């Protein structure tokens, strides 16, 4: 079992009348890669800034290695941060930026030189020592920012949307690189992002946040396969979310039809949200299906077609590699493990209907603004 390194207890953060964080309880394990995932304004950056010590919570406690650190200033914490937009010192060159923390802690110049050299090698910036940071590309600045933090050998590295300013290609490369660095140095990473794909591919644990509350904590697989509520189901990947009734354990009813499922532990006849992932639906001939609907829209997406199908006025998104022409009638089959049942929540009815489907739906998260919690 991994050891708990950071513990947040009942954190509440208020800016004036705005409650940005609402009773956050979180345990961060040593040497793990944890991601705080959520839309703009969900409180993820504020949580990170509280861990770093830049902000004091309105109430609640922060523990580090069992010690309460609410009153410990940032410069005394064994935590370093990679800032959004990097916050490199423009008056210093690459070498001096990386050496900054070591010089503050007054290490001998020889030791500094050795460690900065190693770090430059690790982030493949050898030969850039005397370059001005303003003359570097985004990806290079990013590496300097990581090196500047890691060179101090912190116990925890906090990363605030570190890849947000990079283009897609570079972002993918850096994702792999960051994960590799984390495994190599073997320290805890706490990573903030609004990009669900980034979160799923890098993390050991994902914390999904919205409205200042934690919605779900789990492994990427858990979060995707067993979303806790309609918000999580919708935010992580694409989901069709239907109203249903849990007849009994392993039996759920929606569209006036009973389906076998793998969920249990609900009350009898409890109203529930049913999640069906677009890629889990099997398309069959109209007569062989559990349900029968009309294709209203088809978009080619490269690997698959996004097919919108109208079932009695409720539109589903189905992702399939087979092309089904607009207007054709198709049947679908649902296996028990394609169906995921969730308790009703405040988010019920807000997501998961593709009636207003537009082809730009998956770009929406990319255009989001930088999160500034002020």
């Amino acid at each position: 079992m991994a050891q708990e390194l950071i513990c947040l207890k009942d954190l509440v953060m208020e800016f004036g009348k705005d409650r940005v964080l609402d009773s956050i309880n979180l345990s961060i394990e040593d040497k793990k890669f944890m991601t705080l995932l959520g839309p703009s304004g969900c409180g993820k950056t504020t949580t990170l800034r509280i861990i770093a010590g830049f902000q004091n919570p309105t109430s609640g406690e922060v523990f580090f290695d069992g010690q309460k650190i609410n009153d410990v200033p940032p410069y005394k914490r064994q935590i370093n941060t990679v800032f959004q937009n990097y916050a490199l010192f423009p008056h210093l060159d690459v070498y001096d930026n990386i050496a900054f923390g070591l010089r503050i802690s007054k290490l001998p110049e020889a030791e500094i030189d050795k460690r900065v050299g190693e770090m430059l090698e690790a982030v493949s910036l050898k030969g850039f020592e005397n370059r001005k940071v303003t003359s570097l590309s985004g990806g290079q600045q990013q590496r300097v920012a990581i090196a500047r933090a890691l060179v101090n050998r912190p116990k925890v590295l906090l990363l605030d949307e570190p890849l947000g300013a990079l283009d897609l290609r570079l972002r993918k490369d850096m994702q792999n690189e960051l994960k590799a660095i984390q495994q190599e140095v073997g320290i805890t990473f706490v990573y903030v992002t609004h990009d669900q794909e980034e979160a799923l591919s890098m993390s050991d644990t994902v914390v999904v946040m919205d409205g200042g509350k934690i919605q779900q904590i789990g492994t990427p697989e858990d979060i995707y396969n067993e979303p806790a509520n309609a918000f999580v189901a919708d935010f992580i990947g694409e989901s069709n979310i239907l109203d249903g009734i849990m007849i009994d354990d392993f039996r759920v009813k929606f569209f006036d039809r009973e389906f076998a499922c793998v969920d249990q532990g609900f009350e009898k006849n409890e109203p529930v949200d049913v999640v069906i992932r677009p890629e889990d639906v099997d398309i069959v001939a109209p007569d062989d299906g559990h349900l029968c609907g009309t294709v209203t829209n088809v978009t080619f997406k490269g690997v698959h077609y996004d097919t919108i199908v109208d079932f009695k006025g409720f539109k589903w998104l189905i992702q399939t590699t087979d092309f089904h022409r607009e207007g054709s009638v198709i049947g679908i089959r649902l296996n028990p493990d394609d169906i995921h049942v969730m308790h009703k929540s405040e988010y019920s009815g807000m997501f998961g209907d593709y009636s207003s489907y537009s082809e730009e739906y998956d770009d929406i998260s990319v255009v989001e603004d930088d999160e500034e919690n002020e």
Partner: protein
Amino acid sequence: MKRKWLTAPYIVWMLLFTIIPLCIVIYFAFTDSITGEFTFSNITGMWDYAPIFLRSIWLSVIATIICLIIGYPVAYTIAQCEPRTQQMLQMLIMLPMCMSFLLRTLAWVALLEDTGIINNLVTALGLTPLPLIRNSGAVILGMVYNYLPYMILPLYTSISKINPRLIEAAEDLGCNKSKVFGKVTLPLSMPGIASGITMVFVPAVSTFYISQKLGSPGTILVGDIIESQFKGAYNPNLGAAMSLILMILIFICIGISNHFTNSDSEEEVMMP
């Protein structure tokens, strides 16, 4: 650039009222006042006035340093305030600038005179009057009082432009408050320091009114001498030569200050 002609009025203005007069000054500086022939005597005659030049520079340097010492903490404090408070404080800083320069200086005379307000108070308390006026100290005081806003404003601008994330980054990397200041805030406000120094030093070194009102014959400044060449001594050629030398000295001083404050830093790391 299609819109170049938009700057035409300014270029004409500069040509008429700066470039041409400057050429005239140079012409006068190198011609004899009586014969009108080309001569270096105006320039070489400048050695007699070397002590006055040195005094002007010396007093202005002291005034500039005092302005910097008083102005920096003020500018720093304003930059930390709430935006609305910042605006108000900025207004307060500029308030003295709204008053006539002459009036402000005369007000100091009224305060510092041997029979002025302060000394009246002192004598009323049964003490001997203080020598508050007609010395270098009074001249420096006048300079600091008049030019302090010109130091604070550029300092405030450059400090408030520093990205707060850089301050946090420094704290994150182990700096306490004083180290944050020394390692990040101060170096990044160097452009403000440089322009503040220029804005105070240049008018201070060429001022003439302050020294006439608050100083004594012993604290006469270059500006006064130049004025007297045109008004009393009727030697515009010598006055022109002095102006020219003063200009060169100012350039040298600014060059020195830029050399020490030049960190060619930009406020924000460029985005890709």
